[in-house]
């Protein structure tokens, strides 16, 4: 049997809007994932540190502060510094379409905007993780 997917939901930066982060965290838990929520106002370093300690598979960032173009790359770099570059990085918030595309194209992450069903997020994460685990299984 496959193990549970471990997810860290993070709130980087000074943004205090946590309705989305907490809603998604609760929903992913209901979908059977193990979810850790960082709480508010975390630095990229602190998020990467928890991700490494908890050995998570997925990091989801919620950003409604407009600082996404600075924060996604910083979290990615902080994860890589801890040999956690393999983590599936995703997120959402108030992020203009062009920026979403730019971050996706640059390989940082896939992002989910307002109005997304939590089920869609859960299904995407599950599919991505299954794909990875299949690959790992085949390699072993």
């Amino acid at each position, binding site marked *: 049997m496959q193990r549970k997917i471990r997810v860290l939901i993070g709130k980087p*930066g*000074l*943004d*205090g*809007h*946590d*309705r989305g982060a*907490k*809603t998604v*965290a*609760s*929903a992913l838990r209901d979908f059977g994932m193990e979810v850790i*929520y960082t*709480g*508010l*106002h975390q*630095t990229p370093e602190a998020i990467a540190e928890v991700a490494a300690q908890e050995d998570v598979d997925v990091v989801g960032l919620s950003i409604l*502060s*407009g*600082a996404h*173009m*600075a*924060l996604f790359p*910083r979290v990615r770099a902080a994860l890589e510094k801890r040999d956690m570059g393999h983590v599936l990085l995703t997120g959402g918030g*108030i992020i*203009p*379409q062009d920026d979403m595309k730019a971050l996706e194209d640059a390989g940082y992450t896939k992002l989910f*905007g*307002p*109005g997304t*069903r*939590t*089920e869609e997020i859960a299904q995407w994460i599950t599919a991505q993780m299954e794909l990875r685990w299949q690959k790992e299984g085949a390699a072993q």
Partner: protein
Amino acid sequence: MSLDDPLHRVQVHDGEQLWRREFDAAKKRSAEFTTLSGAPLEPLYGPDAIADLDHERDLAYPGQFPYTRGVHPTMYRGRLWTMRQFAGFGSAKQTNERFKFLLAHGQTGLSTAFDFPTLMGYDSDHEHSIGEVGQVGVAISSLEDMETLMSGIPMGEVSTSMTINGPAPILLAFYIACGENQGVDPKLLRGTVQNDILKEFQAQHAWLVPPEPALRMITDVMGYCSERVPQWNTISISGYHIREAGSTAAQELAFTLANGMEYVKRGLAAGLDIDDFAPRLSFFFDSHLDFFEEIAKFRAARRIWARKMRDTFGAKDPRSWMVRFHTQTAGVSLTAQQPENNIVRVAFQALAAVLGGTQSLHTNSMDETLALPTEKAVKIALRTQQIIAEEIEVAHVADPLGGSYFVEALTNKLEAEAERYFAEIDRRGGVVPCIEAGYIQREIHRSAIAYQAAVERGSKKVVGVNCYTEDDKGPTIDILRIDASVEREQHERLAALRKRRDNARCKRELDAIRDACRSKDNLLERFVAAAHAYCTLGEIADVLRAEFGVYKEPKIL
């Protein structure tokens, strides 16, 4: 036939029975009809629904206790509500230009949005500020930035609202000092500082120090202003953020007023006279999508507060009994899908606020789920208010829905639900223990989850999101972008300021703040002196963080 005629009573009775029979037999669109907050609704409200309503006791007249029907005898025949669009982005210079744009288009008051570093008490050049400077509001790190923000705006004439909480007393000090430098007596300054820290811990989450020292600073502001800045609203007790974080209408009402009562208790405990500070307390509510529930909420807020202030706290001045409030339409109801539809949502929400008797109003712009609003979107939002004021003839009669069986029953119900929450909060030891235990945060979270589940189930319909959807290629409207140069220039300005100012004087002022933290001296007085010395926001906040500690939120998830 007279009303007392037995035949008349039989007919009325028959009418009701007949209606009920026909109603029960007919097919319905849905098994359940509820308010947006999920409370079940009757299909019809009649005299029975408000049998206990007493006109004198529960409604009275506009301008009379308990103010259910409004706080002014004339309501909008005397003066329309203040059209106050919340604005702020980028540098102080850019926001100053947006302020002048809004004033030129008929806006009647200013409302300032700050960026996250400012809201959290960090200078633009702090490490935590990277990428956030000027993004969601204007960056104000010192008196110098405030002077740029208010440049060319007569501070003795406009009223200015500042949405800031943790460092509110510091920003207010910048504003007072800026006015003094413009030659304006603080007694003439009019406006509001949000300064509502309790709801920050509950919902909005831009705090600076833990609850007790934060509350002490608030009573310092109330004490200072009642004497020296008497026209200033010292707190805007805000339900808006509680609602946006996911609460129901009843929770918004209950938690907001519970917070208000906590401030009153703190003011009294600090030795202030209730009628010296209570008239300067103002309120701020959300206007969400449920038209009638919102109108009932505004009416209930006025009635509950009047009763508490007069009967529980013993305030004598009628101005202490009144809920004067600002309203903002519900940001959370806007959709990124088919964003132009948001114009219509905002119009209905704005109408509910006006029918509910608001004193000032912000209408959201259609593009706010994507970014900060463009000038075009802001102008449509302002024009929406002007159409309500000038074209649709709703501003002529006070409390036009008063007496509606439905609206009165909803008003009563919301008051009763708020009372249940007040009792529960008391049982748990008061507002601050409820925050520290995460009780209020958990109640809000539970409602947010229930709402999301209803949308995903489809029992709550959202046009463009779970019905009438279109294949979205993404929004086609223009959006506002904050240039990266804002952050860089802010760094340069701060570096220059730190070089130019009298740094020995700054140190003396910061030391004086440290001493005041350890005594009972009024902190706002020290902040105004520090502002004049061009101490920065971050420098002052650092002293407070060092003296009072930093708040850690309780885990609720």
